[in-house]
């Protein structure tokens, strides 16, 4: 498990962090220009409208770039190697995050990933991403669990 410290919640992001406790991944959408906004904030950085709202994002995306980190400091020193990445969300924005539940040597640009929430123990969770199992791999897992 990677370190999961509690986030700093402010009025811009309180709703986002609250939803993480329920396993929902929220983003911000501008109703004037239609763009999806990351990181969440109330004023649209594209058209500068205040006419923005929360939207439940799919939590699906693909790896835009990644790095397998071999040297790190602090709490992260003990969890190398781990994967730092940008995930391009299906809604458009690219967010910095970690790829987890994976073989670090197998991660590649373009991999399909899905959000997972890692509990901070403080009533919210950090959004991270794991590889989407292919259909056949999923059914194999299901079979092995049945067996």
């Amino acid at each position, binding site marked *: 498990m990677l370190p999961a410290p509690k986030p700093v919640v402010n009025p811009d992001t309180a709703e986002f962090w609250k939803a993480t406790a329920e396993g929902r991944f929220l983003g911000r959408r501008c109703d004037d220009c239609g763009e999806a906004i*990351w990181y969440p904030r109330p004023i649209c950085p594209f058209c500068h409208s205040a006419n923005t709202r929360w939207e439940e994002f799919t939590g699906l995306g693909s790896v835009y770039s990644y790095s397998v980190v071999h*040297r790190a400091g602090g709490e992260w020193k003990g969890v190398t190697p781990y994967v730092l990445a940008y995930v391009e969300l299906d809604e458009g924005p690219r967010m910095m995050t970690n790829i987890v539940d994976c073989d670090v040597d197998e991660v590649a*640009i373009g991999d399909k990933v899905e959000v997972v929430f890692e509990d901070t123990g403080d009533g919210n969770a950090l959004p991270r991403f794991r590889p989407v199992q292919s259909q056949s791999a999923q059914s194999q897992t299901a079979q092995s669990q049945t067996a």
Partner: protein
Amino acid sequence: MNANDAAVIIGAYEHPGRELPDKSLAQIHAEVAIGALADAGLTLDDVDGFFLGHDAPGYGGGWVSMAEYLGLRSLTYMDSTESGGASPIYHVSHAAAAIAAGKCNVALITLAGKPRTGIQPGGGGPLRPEDSFEMGMFTGAGLVSTYALAAQRHMYEYGTTSEQLAEIKVAATIHASHNPNAFLQKVMTVEDVVNSPLVADPLHRADCCLVTDGGGAVVVVSREVARSLNRQPVKILGQGEAAKLTDGGRVDLTYTSAVQSGPRAFEQAGVTVNDIDYVSIYDSFTITVLEILEDLGFCEKGEGGRFVMDGTLVAPHGRLPFNTDGGGLSNNHPGHRGGITKIIEAVRQLRGEANQGVQVPDCEIALVHGNGGDLGTRMRSATMILGRDA
């Protein structure tokens, strides 16, 4: 009158130290200030403009505490523009603008740090709005790993290789071997670089800049003051600034804000890439240099890897000699900030005072480029084109 015609660089000084456990941070600022003023034939009593970034210790973004420490009594203009390691390159052009506007006549710009043997200030202050989503404690992101994200994507899109990035480090080590003050004296090969330990894939230890104590300073003065001094001035021909931010999450890691700051500087200077004899390019990491060379137009986007091969960057006879002091990769990266040494080496080249073995023959026009911030997230660029005074 073009603001840049009103002012010239007249003094430059790099601290010879790379490990300074017995000096305070303020003392290093003071020593480089006195050094650059002495190079110009001036003293602290002549200074009326003071420019520093947040590497300076103390109150007011540094300048209040440092002005007091130094005993600067005649200040009429102060600027603490903070743009990471690129700050001093901003400061030179801001000083030129202030001089052109009649706000000051002798502008002092200092940078110093002691991350090797002490504590480096800066980076504090209130939490930024994006922090909970990307700062190191939540993602394990560090400076090396975020630059690694940029390198990985550049490799994916353009086929750039670790061996090509290594060529940049090799050129820097060749230059450093001619510099008696350089931290790294040993010439490295491509194999040495790619066989150094991976810090954050695909960046190796040798792809990263040095951690050194030290600093440097430059002095910008009005043409009138320069005429009264017996020192060769360096002309400021053009300058451009730009920022590239995360744009609502539409991050593109394959280019930097040099794509905007570069053309602004070239246009003001009235020159093209073909006129540039020497470049000081910000070299926090090898990938930083590669992307900036593309973005400034020295080669096509994506061609940087091929461009840097075959000794292109090696002085004195490569097509585009770069960072002939050894740069941040091999000479000095004081306080994690490479801006001041980039200016100083360009000044040396234009005055014909570079180290023997790396002086570019007939060096008339030099380009200095600084990248402040992070290739992996948000950054600011400053490009400056300097000319030998006739």
